[in-house]
């Protein structure tokens, strides 16, 4: 009786979970565990499936980001609408207005190479060509 009851219970459990088991069979570890192992309640199986999907999606996204960053380690992601950083705006405006008197601040805050980076901005290097093209297009 006990084994019969256990068998019925297993059969009922498998029937209830049949829809999920079809999906689980397609995946590897979770599916085989649910199908051949002890009976697991439906919410528990569903929860495992959801967790598995979330993990898989998360891992895929993380892998894609990692691949992208390995390919373009210094690429600026300016493909979406950006937020406007007020503190950065004020800092850069004051640094350029007060250059070269702002050099000690740059040294202290960002290191010795920062003054050279900012110096190129002061010289119009790069921006001149950019602005020129901008004016031509307008």
């Amino acid at each position, binding site marked *: 009786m006990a084994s019969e009851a256990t068998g019925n219970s297993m059969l009922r459990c498998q029937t209830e979970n049949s829809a999920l088991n079809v999906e689980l069979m397609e995946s590897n570890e979770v599916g085989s565990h649910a199908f051949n192992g002890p009976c697991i309640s439906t919410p528990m199986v569903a929860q495992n499936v959801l967790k598995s999907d979330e993990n898989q999606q998360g891992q895929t996204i993380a892998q894609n980001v990692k691949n992208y960053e390995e390919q373009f380690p210094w690429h600026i992601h300016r493909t979406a609408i950006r937020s406007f950083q007020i503190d950065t705006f004020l800092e850069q405006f004051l640094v350029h207005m007060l250059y070269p008197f702002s050099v000690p601040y740059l040294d202290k805050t960002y290191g010795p*190479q920062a003054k050279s980076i900012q110096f190129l901005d002061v010289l119009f290097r790069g921006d001149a060509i950019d602005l020129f093209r901008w004016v031509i297009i307008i």
Partner: protein
Amino acid sequence: MPFPAPARYSSHCYWILAVLFCLFDGELTTAGISRTEFFVALAAGGVYRLIIASRYASLTAEEYVDFLKEQNQSVVAELRSQMQLLTGWMQVR
């Protein structure tokens, strides 16, 4: 690749224009250079610096700090080209 050393003199100081104009106001007026011309030049410099500040302000905090702390000049040049108005915002290279 090492960075070019910034100039030690202050010839690129924005306010030197205003200082020179105050010092030589009489001579400039005699030479026919009006104060309006002086203010146009000063305003152009100010607008240029506003544009630069706006360009940096569109970066995230992490990108901004990474850019200013970058040691490799070629990487900085590439980042700078990506940050420019046209190349950055309109995706034109």
